[in-house]
């Protein structure tokens, strides 16, 4: 299990020794970090929040009347922003980002039937 403290220690080690990439394998988890050159300022510490469902239904990451997904990895989101929908009999409930940050990983697929509390995506939150 890699913790935020581990990440902080790895980042400071990379900066200390001028490393551009670092890969750490622990069990099934692979951590890969890349720093883009020496001008990179020390990164602000970040934490990862998981957006979960608050109801049941079919997950829509793209509004059915639109062609582009609501968010993609790397997009900035505000707290309270709608990042997806749960559809029940043509009625849509929002999947809402609890905190502001940057979209990390999409964890569930378009059209998946999800129950209450299912993870949908991660948000990297500035500390």
């Amino acid at each position: 299990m890699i913790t935020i403290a581990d990440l902080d220690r790895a980042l400071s080690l990379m900066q200390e020794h001028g490393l551009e990439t670092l890969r750490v394998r622990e069990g099934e988890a692979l951590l890969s970090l890349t720093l883009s050159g020496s001008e990179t300022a020390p990164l602000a510490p970040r934490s990862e929040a998981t957006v979960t469902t608050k109801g049941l239904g079919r997950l829509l990451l793209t509004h059915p009347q639109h062609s582009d997904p609501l968010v993609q990895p790397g997009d900035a989101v505000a707290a309270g922003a709608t990042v997806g929908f749960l559809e029940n009999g043509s009625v849509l409930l929002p999947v809402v980002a609890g905190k502001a940050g940057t979209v990390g990983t999409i964890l569930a697929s378009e059209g998946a039937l999800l129950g209450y509390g299912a993870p949908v995506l991660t948000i990297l939150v500035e500390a």
Partner: protein
Amino acid sequence: MMEILSSSALATIQDAGRHSYYRDGVSRSGVMDGVALALGNALLGNDADAAAVEIPMLPFSVRFDQDLDIAVTGADCSARLDDRALPPNWAITAKAGETLTLGAPRSGCRAYLCVAGGFDVPAVLGSRSTQLREQFGGLEGRMLQKGDRLNGRRAETLLPAGGIGVNLVPLRPTVGDVAEVRVIPAAEYGLFVPEAHQALWSAEWDVTPQSNRAGYRLAGPELRLQAPVELRSHGIVPGVIQVPPGGAPIIQLADAATMGGYPKIGAVIEADLWRLAQARPGAKLRFRQVSFAEALDALGELDAFLSQVRSTTARVRNAAQGWTR
């Protein structure tokens, strides 16, 4: 209470229409897009015919001075509540001090702002719809303007945080600029030349700029009668396609006269009138012939969709109330 900060001309208060005064010559009026009104009212838990603001030209913005459940339906018009983007066909609790802004539509052309309980204007002859020609109903019988202040008829907010919306796709809304609408032939259909019949069903008809709540004037092939005909004046209803002697059809709509005398080649079925409402000038129409029975089936399909949305939204609102209490 809410205040209109900006409004292009032609925004009016409309409900499901003024239905029982045809014998006095009072046109139906009411919303052009009945599906948008029904969905907005379903999302808010309103009566199906509660009054909304119909906004045929954007931009439009209002500021709320108290918390109020609202829904924005109809045209997909990049609605924003302060900085927050609202998805199409969405209902949410607007907070005191927030401003709702509707922008240029991505698709469709008429947006609807519905509020909890419907807009609080007096019912005249059984309806809150604005009768523009006779200048009664709605807000003082006129179009809305900057500075107008309006109230909803229910202060209580019932929506879950983040709001709720509807997926309209099962109703097959028009994608792109050619709307297909279904038509039942009308009394004088048989009096037109065969080329007119062929053109009616195969041409793409332009919605001209002379199109409004009273009717859409279409441009396309000339629809010729076999011989001139002078009819006795008779009732017409929204959807009727009249052909004046020039041969260019006019689809009669919400504010149309209740009686007329031009030959009628057909009538757009009731279940597809909402599609016409969202066809903007410059868009094209295609007509598809259906029987009376098929038109009833289409109406049944529409009613089933709307009643399913009504029951699901009621369940969601009740659940949201359960969590907060």
